[in-house]
């Protein structure tokens, strides 16, 4: 078939169509992406581990099934390869959470989402980079490497899921999985011009997702189109008995909603502009693209009103109590006893288990992780619990109330995803508060457990992508996909095709078959 460049620039749904029609095999898709990975990695560094051999074996297994007509019940994306954030455990493939403390750890089991991908015949290309234990907004806190934004390799791809977002943006993978605790799928989506979805809490099993903050974490899709995310979420979603917080319900019809949206008819839909999630602190170019997108929704028939969520300004504060509290407990198990790094104390220090744990954790965790463990340990301490953790939980309830009231008035809420476009390396690493502000618009959805999505909304005046966020009521992920797909289609019209056409991709040069 056509050259590799053409092939990898297809959407996942288009790749799937070519597999269905037997124009291309799963193996050819895997090989094409492996060659892009080889060319792109020196400048992008999205992957911590490339599992090429495993991917090819999975592709061959699928191709065989497909050839024998046994893959007819497989999901639409069957045979299309995918990259996995290294926060999700993969049997037999090293999983590190981008931390030194897990260096060399090879899980003996697969996460539920990985089992589902394998059952669907979707080959795993490798494990993508992230901020250590998903803690950060730039992927600069990875213990291993810095991932570069394909739009400008001097800039960050966002975080924590910068690896998955960059891999998809740079055509190293058509799809990826991320985890989103405060915006780790959506904010990198905004900064790399990709689509990222945080499903309803409990909509996708967390079994096998390394825990950062259990009450906030969700696994979700990363893709270049809205339909691709819908198709992927249908593969990974659904009830799982191994996750107590998993919702016992079927995945809503997401791809159907996306396809309906592509007709660009939003009559009867009410869209709410969240007053508290714009204005001060938002880059003018980001605001401009956001306002244009809102106008497009109106042009397609949606009714747009402004709604107020008065407690949203407190969400960042509540998040930075709840998240570190859970982090402090979730990361306790990395103690050198059972797996991962073990550092013995120096000879002049008593060789006790307690000292071994202390030296291991001192050496194995980076500064940002330590900062959050210390914050969380403090917040949960006797005498402080009510004032910190207790108050934060009350704020959380108020934010849920805000959402409930807003969704009494409108079907879907919208805001810019991130206050700014991609920033330069080092620009915010010395100022944790500035870094934390990146997630101001994405955090409320995690606190309330509602589904949210970021889609590219154009390029800012600095030539970098901007993100547009949609938020729907709990368990109504389908409500996100229709307006998102409509807006995507309208934007493609306006910009003459997908945003990535404006991106320089030197790593693709010369990739022909």
């Amino acid at each position, binding site marked *: 078939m056509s050259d590799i460049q053409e092939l990898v620039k297809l959407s996942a749904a288009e790749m799937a169509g070519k597999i269905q029609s037997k124009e291309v095999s799963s193996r050819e898709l895997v090989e094409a992406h492996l060659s892009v990975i080889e060319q792109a990695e020196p400048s992008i560094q999205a992957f911590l581990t490339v599992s090429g051999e495993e991917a090819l074996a999975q592709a061959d297994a699928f191709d065989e099934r497909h050839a024998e007509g046994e893959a007819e019940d497989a999901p639409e994306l069957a045979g299309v390869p995918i990259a996995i954030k290294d926060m*999700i*455990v993969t049997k037999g493939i090293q*999983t590190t*959470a981008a931390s030194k403390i*897990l260096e060399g*750890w090879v*899980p*003996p*089991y697969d*996460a539920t989402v990985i089992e589902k991908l394998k059952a669907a015949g979707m080959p795993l290309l490798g494990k993508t980079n992230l901020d250590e234990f998903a803690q950060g907004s730039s992927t600069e806190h990875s213990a291993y490497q810095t991932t570069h934004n394909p739009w400008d390799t001097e800039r960050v791809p966002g975080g924590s899921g910068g690896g998955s977002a960059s891999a998809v943006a740079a055509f190293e993978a058509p799809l990826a999985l991320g985890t989103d605790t405060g915006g780790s799928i959506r904010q990198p989506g905004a900064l790399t011009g990709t689509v990222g979805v945080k499903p309803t809490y409990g909509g996708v099993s*967390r*079994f*096998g*997702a*390394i*825990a950062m*903050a*259990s*009450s906030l974490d969700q696994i979700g899709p990363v893709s270049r189109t809205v339909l691709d995310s819908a198709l992927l979420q249908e593969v990974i979603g659904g009830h799982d*008995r*191994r*996750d*107590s*917080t998993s919702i016992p319900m079927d995945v809503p019809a997401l791809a159907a909603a996306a396809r309906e949206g592509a007709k660009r008819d939003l009559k009867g839909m009410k869209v709410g502009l969240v007053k508290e999630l714009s204005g001060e602190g938002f880059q003018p170019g980001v605001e401009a693209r956001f306002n244009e997108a809102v106008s497009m929704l109106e042009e397609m028939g949606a009714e747009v009103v402004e709604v107020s969520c008065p407690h949203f300004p407190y969400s960042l504060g509540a998040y930075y109590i709840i998240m570190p*509290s*859970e982090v*402090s*407990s979730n990361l*306790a*198990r990395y*103690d050198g*006893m*059972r*797996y991962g790094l073990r550092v013995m104390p120096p000879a002049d220090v008593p060789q006790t*288990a*307690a000292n071994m*744990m202390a030296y291991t954790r001192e050496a194995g965790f980076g500064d940002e992780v330590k900062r959050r463990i210390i914050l969380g*340990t403090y917040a*949960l*301490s*006797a005498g402080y*619990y009510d004032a910190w*953790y207790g108050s934060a939980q009350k704020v959380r309830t108020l934010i849920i109330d805000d959402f409930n009231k807003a969704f009494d008035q409108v079907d879907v809420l919208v805001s810019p995803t991130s206050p700014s476009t991609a920033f330069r390396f080092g620009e915010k690493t010395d100022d944790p508060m500035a870094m934390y502000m990146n997630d101001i618009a994405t955090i409320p959805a995690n606190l309330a457990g509602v589904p949210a999505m970021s889609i590219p909304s154009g390029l800012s005046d600095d030539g970098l992508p901007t993100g547009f966020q949609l938020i729907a009521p709990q368990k109504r992920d389908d409500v996100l996909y229709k307006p998102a797909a409509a807006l995507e289609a309208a934007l493609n019209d306006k910009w003459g095709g997908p945003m990535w056409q404006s991106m320089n991709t030197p790593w693709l040069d010369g990739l022909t078959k």
Partner: protein
Amino acid sequence: MAEKLMKYADAVKQFDPVFGLETHVELSTNTKLFCPAHIEFGGEPNSQLTPVSLGLPGSLPVINETAVDYAIKLGLALHCEIAEWSQFARKNYFYPDMPRDYQISQYDKPTNGNGYLDVELEDGTVFRVQIERAHIEDDAGKNTHVGGADGRIEGADHSLVDYNRAGVPLIEIVTKPIEGAGERAPEIAGAYMRAIRDIVRALNISHARMEQGNMRADVNVSLRPMGSKEFGTRSETKNVNSFRGIEKTMQYEIRRQAAILADGGEILQETRHWDEATQTTAGGRVKSDADDYRYFPDPDLVMLHITKDRIDRISKEMPEMPRERRNRLQQEWQFSDLEMRDVINADALDTIEATVSAGASASGAKKWWLGELSREANAKGVSLEELDITPEDVAEVEKLIADGKLNDKLAKQTVAGVLAGEGHPADVVKAHGYQVVSDDGALVAAVDEAFAANPDVVEKLKSGNMKPMGAIIGAVMRATKGQADAKAVTKIVMEKLH
């Protein structure tokens, strides 16, 4: 270093003990509390593991509903209020045997709260112990210290960790402070533990073997001056794992604390350990404000919802409780209090009940199980259930006696044969040809022979002096190799005399 102790009698004259027990009961579910890892006592170290019980990254706990059913059963037996919504919390602390470095336990929302247990003492007095809570939690693994003396951590050069026990479900039963026990405090503590053991066995929710660690208790003791309302400072003796140990711990702590207080000293709030070898408690870790477990609700587990329907269903399945059962059986069997106490002390209630069910009389069953068979079990150091004889066997022997087919002597030989593995009573009787001779012809001949051989005895009998009767019966027995029915022999002798 021997600690100063006051005589027990003096200690309880001067001070009023207040105590509390935290009893850990290991549930006998097939799988662990939060994952499907199989549970088996004595398995190869680290062979009963899943990613969850090893706390691997990404693993998540899911509650074992059977363990919840067991907790509800225990809650009902202890007359607890069963919470419609209860919650698991994380108790955070670093320890090598804790795979996640936090224990999942119930904190401010336990499944069972506010119950009581009526404990019957040896003399029949009933003492009510108030139960604060009975909550569900998971157990830790087990450390083995190698290279030091007695397996202690001091002096060991390395330790091994076995995570098989990690995640095994436990229920911790916490009493309210027990007041007013006075000098009987140790006795009440022991009786309470036995009552808990009997209940969990009756409910079939735990193997309840203290020697295997299925049950263990933390014993809290404090003293206050007579008449004082305020509690004194307490010590907590951890993981006492025998009934005697609990009683001895109570006695020791009362004597130790009394000596300190009488000298004007202060009790240290600390955890201590019972040392079976020296029969003393030893000081351990001083409790301080530094112990901060940073409890918070476990976000991996949704709240536990227990519906009224579920409680009703379990209520209907509840077996009779041990105390009620004892009272009922005593009435049915018409045993005196003393006889019943002997039965309980011999741990023979179950076997006697089974023997009676198999057709024996209560007194007959008791005679065997408390006599021959108890002696045999003691000699072998096993329980009555572990002997090679079943209640059905005993009932069969009793029936053979009642039918006149065995006399006492033959019955004992038959039982000995069963214990020796020769089969059921019928097999033993057959193999040895045990048979009571009741054939009149043979017996009359034997009596005639005995009369002829003992004319002086016959004279005495004829004159109404019945004392030498035994000599005639003995002679007949010898002649028939012990197989004569003594009653039949007596009858023939009497007939011949008149």
